[in-house]
């Protein structure tokens, strides 16, 4: 039954990806990447990963699109026309794709209970968290914030570092409109 939704979404994902690759108008391409993100968010929701779907919808379809559009406002709307047909990169991509598809043949079937992902971090992880967390039902949060708190601390620091890097690279030294203290605190 779910294949009624699965296959159309996967097909749409593939079509969107090819369309983006063939497109020369960057504004339309950004709109299509937004559509692509939204489709993959729906796809992740079908795979029972609402956390990832949230993130994909908010970051991929929302903020990334806005940021790419504002980049476009700074640069230009059109990709330059290529002088010759890019045969070599095409074959490279084709070969890589074939290798990846070949690689999936070794992977366990979708939803296979004996797949390593179901067995390796120990099924007891799920059972243990009920006791350890005093009945917090969300195992994902328990793993993310408690069992692997260090990991998430590192991730948060990465986000902070990325923000600082963007600020240092892109921030204008002199704001022409507002002389706020924002620029002098960093320099």
């Amino acid at each position, binding site marked *: 039954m779910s294949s009624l939704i699965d296959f159309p979404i996967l097909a749409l994902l593939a079509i969107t990806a090819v369309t983006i690759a063939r497109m020369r108008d960057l504004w339309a391409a950004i709109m299509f990447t937004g559509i692509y993100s939204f489709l993959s968010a729906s796809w992740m929701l079908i795979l029972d990963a*609402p*956390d990832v779907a*949230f*993130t994909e919808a*908010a*970051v991929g379809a*929302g*903020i990334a699109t*806005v*940021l790419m559009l*504002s*980049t476009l*406002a*700074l640069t230009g709307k059109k990709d330059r026309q290529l002088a010759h047909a890019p045969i070599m990169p095409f074959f490279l991509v084709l070969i890589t794709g074939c290798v990846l598809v070949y690689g999936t043949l070794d992977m366990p079937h979708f939803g296979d209970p004996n797949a390593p992902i179901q067995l390796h971090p120990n099924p007891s992880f799920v059972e243990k968290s009920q006791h*350890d*967390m*005093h009945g*917090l*039902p*969300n195992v*994902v*949060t*328990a793993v*993310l*914030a*408690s069992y692997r*708190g*260090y990991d*998430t*601390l590192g*991730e*948060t*620091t990465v*986000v*902070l570092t*990325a*923000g*600082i890097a*963007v*600020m240092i690279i*892109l*921030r*204008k030294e002199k*704001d022409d*409109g*507002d002389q*706020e*203290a*924002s620029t002098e*605190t*960093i320099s």
Partner: protein
Amino acid sequence: MRTFPIIRVVTKILIPYILLFAFYVQFHGDYGPGGGFQAGVIFASALILYGLVFGLESVKRVAPPVVIEKLMALGVLVYGMTGVLTLSLGGNFLDYAVLEHHFYPHLFPSGQHLGIFLVELGVGITVTSVMTMIFYTFAGRKKIV
């Protein structure tokens, strides 16, 4: 600059619900899907939507860049200080079990719950402010029409 009355009105109606949803994802993250990262991005997207429709200057009045850049560091600090707190209470770094208390246990969250809450709050603050700051720096390069 042209004005789009419908977009302005719809944005004004939508933003409170986006913020409310962000808070729901943040504080309900222990029970449902979600958590600091997602909530932060949703919260920031409300600010960015406001900035897109009403202009960079008005969103900078709501969330001044000076405050936002302090909040970026504050989030990580909240996270780190939770770890230091558990250290000083005699546990390991980020070992929330030592936050367990006997002060109205049914009213206030238990140790693990409290630790996760604090940590997620830190993540949420950092992600919100970093996303907003990235938007500010991108949009501040040139006036977006």
